[in-house]
């Protein structure tokens, strides 16, 4: 193929076209949200469901105001958000680091893989009471649960990707006399980036769960604490609000990762619809 004829797909691919259906999908999505909110407001009252079972939308909004002033909602939300991000960052950094290390040594991977598998299967949230016994009623247990729960999906994704790096690409780098570290930096690391990002996305959703469980089991701050506190008082609106805020935190973290991913992985051909 001459360079003249090959220009066409090249130009085409350079312009990322937004699919035409996305605007319609956005409107439909927003309408659905509006519909749900209306149903939430009307149905509990219409069906005579008491407020402590399912509070209406307006109940929740009123409760939100009360929580803001007398339950230091902002500080609790900030605390949960902080530990979500911190636990996510530490857990995924450790997971990625161990994934890359084991990916470079087949021997150690074989030695450690049964233990990794066991730990991966063990329900991480069940460790929370143990951590409280060890570290007391402070932020440490919830941070540890989060780190532990985030660690594995990142580790497993990176390890899997390291195993499937194109051998010919590594051989090419070897033939060019690149050192082991240069091969890692210039071939293996970028090759595994898509899998690392996929692992981080899964981990980001788990991070919120880790923090919440930590706060539920033994905490005096954070949204998880507000959930158990509200639950004890039969204040369903308080629980609803805390759950919504937790979802928002998780959603923001996830969105940030998706944005980073689209920027980092710009070189992957986009599927055209």
């Amino acid at each position, binding site marked *: 193929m001459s360079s003249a004829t090959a220009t066409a797909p090249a130009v085409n691919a350079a312009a990322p076209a937004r699919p035409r259906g996305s605007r319609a999908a956005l409107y439909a999505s927003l309408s659905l949200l509006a519909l749900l909110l209306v149903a939430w407001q009307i149905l509990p009252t219409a069906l005579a469901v008491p407020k402590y079972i399912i509070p209406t939308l307006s109940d929740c909004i009123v409760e939100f105001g009360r929580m803001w002033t007398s339950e230091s909602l902002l500080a609790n939300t900030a605390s949960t958000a902080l530990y979500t991000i911190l636990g996510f960052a530490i857990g995924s950094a450790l997971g990625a680091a161990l994934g890359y290390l084991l990916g470079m040594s087949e021997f150690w991977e074989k030695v450690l893989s049964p233990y990794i598998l066991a730990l991966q299967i063990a329900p991480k949230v069940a460790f929370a009471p143990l951590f409280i016994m060890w570290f007391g009623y402070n932020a440490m247990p919830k941070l540890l649960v989060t780190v532990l729960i985030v660690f594995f999906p990142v580790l497993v994704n990176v390890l899997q990707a390291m195993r499937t790096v194109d051998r010919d690409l590594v051989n090419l*780098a070897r033939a060019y006399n690149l050192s082991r570290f240069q091969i890692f930096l210039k071939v293996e690391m970028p090759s595994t980036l898509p899998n690392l990002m996929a692992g981080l996305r899964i981990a980001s959703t788990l991070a919120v769960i880790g923090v919440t469980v930590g706060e539920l089991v033994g905490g005096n701050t954070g949204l998880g604490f507000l959930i158990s506190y509200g639950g004890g008082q039969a204040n369903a609106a308080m629980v609803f609000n805390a759950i919504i805020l937790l979802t928002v935190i998780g959603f923001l973290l996830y969105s940030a990762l998706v944005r980073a991913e689209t920027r980092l992985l710009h070189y992957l051909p986009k599927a055209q619809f």
Partner: protein
Amino acid sequence: MALEFRGVTKQFTTNSGAVLTAIRDVTFKVNEGEFVSVVGPSGCGKSTLLSMTAGLYQPTTGEVLVSDQPVTGPNDHVGFMLQKDLLLPWRNIVKNIEFGLEARGAAPGPRRERAMAELKRCHLAGFENHFPYQLSGGMRQRAALARTLAIDPEIILLDEPFSALDAQTKLLLQDSFAATIAESGKTTLLITHDLSEAVLMSDRILVLSERPGTVLTEIKVELPDRAHPLKRRVMPEVGEYAGQIFRHLKLEEKAI
């Protein structure tokens, strides 16, 4: 002597523990500036020859010499190219061409200059900032050739570089590779299963037997225009040469 195999045998141990002899007692020489093709049935160890020349692994017995020096590991004298272009998808074309130069500690300025020169030579000027996925298969292979030439190797090893391309792209790319290689004066070893490709592009053809691969015969291609396979293509002798290789490989007996 640019490249020499002296009684090279290579054995592999398979996963089940059996010893597999890929090639046996292979001896041949390639002169400087010569274009030699290796043809043979699939699984005859053609690619093993290439990997040993590149220094990726060592012969079990015998010696491989590049520029009269035994090959003991990956070295600067050899550049290789496979059927897959092996471009790094996260790098643009010019940075891909620079890839081979990065282990050599060249300053970024001259490195870029060198890469741009190869880019032009391989008719990719204007595509330096494109990413591999934005290029056609033929252009990607040209970029891979530019990357191979950028390290200024003494020998270029080509392992079926055209076999993944469609028929027309293949003809044009063979022509463009032949011209570029002839202009650079590099010694070239082409591994292929396409008999006419071997005839069109080479000075000499080595015919390998089935595994364990040994050199059955050497055929000197006495045709003009090595730098222009498209011109050779219309010569009546091409068919005769291909027929000669065909007979050596005893392909007729295998056709049922």
